[in-house]
């Protein structure tokens, strides 16, 4: 009797779990198929290589793809060194700077919870106006860097923490200095975690609208330098769907391009994760 009862309970729990998972998946599938159905006819080689015409209703998105890539490059070029340095401080040097790492962790948690429009307004006030960088790809990249730092640092820090203490003990036993232990042992070993964080950060950055509209801006011309304003993919989608009558078709096509890029980035993150877990043993 009680085993029968248990079986029903198990089935119920199983059913609920399944339907919740299905609900989640169907939400995604609905969204994705909507974008594919409406967007697929608009995406072509020409769409990817032409410049936008008539406020984006016609033409393509070539300058927007280039601007997006440049913004991401600036973002990562700034965020990676800062992220790595901070993660090393947090995970390897906490015993020397205990109070400081607490303060840093608290700051990161707060940063991670700040809405992106606040980053956008901060970026506009600080990078564009105070530092005089104007509406530019550099301003946008720097603003995004502030935004992805928490993800990047936390994931890299976890990578360092996941390394067995044996590594550090053996290195110390061999008489290696802390610096060479870091450079030749710990950083290479934690690199996959760092790359995973990098790719997660990239995924967040590429989908960002609010942080960019007042920093890298609205100009859809092919950027000639990093000091030019350049429109990111997400802003192009926003403007076409919310501000340009008749812009829906190209908004969908651009959304399809963006979501494809997100897929590629996520697949990259997963591939790195797999390689990491299968290659945990170091070849020193």
């Amino acid at each position, binding site marked *: 009797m009680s085993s029968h009862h248990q079986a029903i309970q198990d089935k119920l729990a199983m059913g609920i779990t399944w339907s919740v998972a299905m609900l989640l998946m169907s939400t995604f599938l609905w969204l994705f198929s909507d974008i594919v159905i409406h967007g697929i006819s608009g995406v072509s080689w020409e769409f990817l290589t032409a410049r936008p015409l008539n406020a*984006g209703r016609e033409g393509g998105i070539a300058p927007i793809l280039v601007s997006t890539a440049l913004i991401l490059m600036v973002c990562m070029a700034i965020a990676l060194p800062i992220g790595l340095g901070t993660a090393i401080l947090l995970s390897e040097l906490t015993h020397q700077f205990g109070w400081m790492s607490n303060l840093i962790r608290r700051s990161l948690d707060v940063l991670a919870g700040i809405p992106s429009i606040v980053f956008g307004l901060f970026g506009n006030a600080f990078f564009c106006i105070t530092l005089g960088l104007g509406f530019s790809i550099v301003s946008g990249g720097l603003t995004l860097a502030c935004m992805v730092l928490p993800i990047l640092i936390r994931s890299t820090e976890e990578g360092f923490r996941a390394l067995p203490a044996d590594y550090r003990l053996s290195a110390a036993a061999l008489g290696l200095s802390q610096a060479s232990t870091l450079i030749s042992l710990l*950083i290479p070993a934690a*690199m996959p975690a760092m790359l995973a964080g990098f790719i997660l950060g990239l995924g967040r950055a590429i989908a960002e609208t609010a942080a960019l509209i007042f920093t890298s*801006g609205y100009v859809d011309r092919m950027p000639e330098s990093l000091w030019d304003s350049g429109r990111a993919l997400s802003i192009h989608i926003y403007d076409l769907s*919310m501000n*340009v*009558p008749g812009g829906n078709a190209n908004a969908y096509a651009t959304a399809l391009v963006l979501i494809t890029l997100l897929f590629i980035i996520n697949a990259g993150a997963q591939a790195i994760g797999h390689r990491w877990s299968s290659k945990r043993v170091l070849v020193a």
Partner: protein
Amino acid sequence: MTKRIPVLLVLLAILPALIGCQESPAANQPIHKLIITGSSTVAPLIADIGKRFEAQHPDIRVDVQTGGSSRGVADARSGIAHIGMASRALHPQETIDLLATTIAQDGIGLIVHADNPVANLTTQQVIDIYTGKVTNWQSLGGMNAPIVVVNKAEGRATLEIFLHHFHLANSAIKADVVIGDNEHGIKTVAGNPQAIAYVSIGTATYDATAGVPIKLLQLNSIPASLATVQNGTFPLSRPLTLVTTKHPRPLAQTFMTFATSPHVQNLVIQHSFIPLPS
């Protein structure tokens, strides 16, 4: 694993290169930048006018940024922008230090879903709807369903013109939905047969013609159309303007002369606005 270190080193190495080498873009030919910010209604039109201007002046880049009319006025005053865009006339206190140049006209019309049987509203009915005195379509000759009131966000020129025309205070409005850009309002109404909103007549005409299920309401039996705005019979209209300080730079002046010339009239019409009389 160690072979991944070069990846990081490369990234670190390009960092100063990225920041340093771009200091002077195109040193052989000085590029002049004209920065224009403001109204999201005007921005797509000015961006297109800017492209035509760039084609005639290869050494000039016209950078257009959005953010709303209030931002355009503020940026023109502070000097962050050479020209601000506003989809309204300047307030009296703004004309003390600023100058507005009208480049086109636009009307503001009330829209409902295409399935809504109501076709005309009087001034009093609009006031009653927006102040929450009338909350059901039935008393206006429509279906028995609650009215979903869509209002514009603060800082939007369309809001100011609407409030001014109907002598309303924004605090008196009982809004169910608050929106930003024109298309935002149109999408809200197209997706809700009980909603009412007010948007640019040009934008609404374009979308209604393209098959979006919305319709423009008559106001006091005057149809809301580009024609009635142009001949002055429709009361809710506004100028689309470029705002500068009293003494704009020569480049800004050249651009404004171009933006008010017959060379851009077809762009104004293409963006569903009413061009200046030629």
